[in-house]
């Protein structure tokens, strides 16, 4: 916690210096011909490709498709993970019944299921949704379970002594107590979500950012390949920032999140 170095315009610019220097180095190398465009196109060429793809509308279309897939998978897998995490966190019996099986499945890398998923679902939309949902399920499940389990038992006893019924106890004590951990799960899940989507879209898709990259590869359009990678990076960063904003809003009581 370097609290003293957090003020002033210089320190605010600090995190941007290295990326900026890298981009300048990249541009200079390309302009001087050290970097052939078929290996790595210049940043300006990537910007140009972005502009072209924006103008013909395909960038927005593909972005929309990818975003919708990511969110649907997140909502489906996240909702199931959250519900099972709560169930197993609140009921010892449910945990004994379900958790060992889930822990076993967790150890399978979900991308290893791709051949099977293609056999089951074909290469349609459901295959991609299934993979994303499966990928985000585990971080959300594990962290929800962990969060519920680790709510301070003294607070639960306090709630009972003050006559809280189960519903109030859940809403006022258990859920807020588990929330920091649930957010950790959400952030992990977002990382897995983009990763899974990239793989799923590059393997089998006829739309989306991953497809755009693979189609460009066929024609050696490295500028569009790089553009796709940059877009993934931006999407990942946006998702992370959104979660941080949610954390600041909902975990304002926690000094660790109050000002990040």
């Amino acid at each position, binding site marked *: 916690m370097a609290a003293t170095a957090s003020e002033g315009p210089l320190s605010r610019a600090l995190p941007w210096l290295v990326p900026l220097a890298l981009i300048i180095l990249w541009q200079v190398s390309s302009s001087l011909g050290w970097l052939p465009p078929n290996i790595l196109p210049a940043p300006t060429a990537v910007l140009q490709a972005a502009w072209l793809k924006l103008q013909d509308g395909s960038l927005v279309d593909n972005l929309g498709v990818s975003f919708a897939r990511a969110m649907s998978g997140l909502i489906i897998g996240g909702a199931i993970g959250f519900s099972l995490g709560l169930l197993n966190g609140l009921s010892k019996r449910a945990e004994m019944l379900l958790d060992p099986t889930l822990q076993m499945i967790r150890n399978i890398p979900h991308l290893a299921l791709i051949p099977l998923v293609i056999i089951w679902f074909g290469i349609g939309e459901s295959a991609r949704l299934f993979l994303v949902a499966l990928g985000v399920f585990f971080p959300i499940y594990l962290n929800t379970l962990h969060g519920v389990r680790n709510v301070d038992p003294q607070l639960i006893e306090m709630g009972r002594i003050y006559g809280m019924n189960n519903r109030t106890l859940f809403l006022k004590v258990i859920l807020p107590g588990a929330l920091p951990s649930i957010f950790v799960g959400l952030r992990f899940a977002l990382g897995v979500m983009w990763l899974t989507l990239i793989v799923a879209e590059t393997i089998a898709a006829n739309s989306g950012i991953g497809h755009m990259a693979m189609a460009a590869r066929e024609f050696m359009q490295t500028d569009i390949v790089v553009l796709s990678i940059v877009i993934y990076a931006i999407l990942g960063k946006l998702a992370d920032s959104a979660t941080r904003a949610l954390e600041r809003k909902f975990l304002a009581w*926690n000094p660790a999140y109050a000002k990040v």
Partner: protein
Amino acid sequence: MSSQPTGGSRVSLKDVKKAFGDNVVLQGIDLEIPAGQFLSIVGKSGCGKSTLLRLMIGLDSVTAGVLDAPALKEQAARIVFQEPRLLPWASVKDNVAVGLGEGQSGQAADQQAAAILDEVGLKGREGLWPSQLSGGMRQRVALARALVSQPTLLALDEPLGALDALTRIDMQALLEGVWQDLGFTALMVTHDVGEAVALGDRVILIDHGQVVLDLAVDLPRPRKRGTPEFAALEGQILDKLFGDDPRAREAH
């Protein structure tokens, strides 16, 4: 606006026994605690004093004997623990509102919460998070939460045990003032004999599950430590606690 006196309620125990399995924790406890009394309960660790407190407040049930406490039937008994046990995600005001129980909200509840926060000296801090308060202030919030429903019986389980020495002295004065204002029956477990004498109308000493000393403290309030009378009472309790072992007494 300050809180109105609530009055106290009596507690009586007749030949009470408490055992966990084969382990007898309390035996042959006979106590009459009149309404409004401030009772201090002292004893060594593991002597059963906290169990006695939990029995009197209805958190545990007696194994044998009779416990009669009208406050339990009227749900007018509350407890303050050594740790404040505040909800970290709720403001001071919302933490106090927990003490009002289900379905108690609106203007009347707000007024009650404001009055009790004023009583414990936390006026103007309603909107803060617990993490923004000092240890002493957090314990004041816990006290306000316990008192907001106007209990007639208040149990205090080492309520100041986690605080530093200066804050303790402050909080003892606060506790005495609140008790004098509201008039509830107070049952306080403490390991600090000086604190027991400073606050209690009566001090009982528990040893091996039995009451071995029952002492009335008849000194004017607020009490000054260091007066001969105060020291004599302290000495009497310490003698009973440690017997003739002067080194143990010295250490206390």
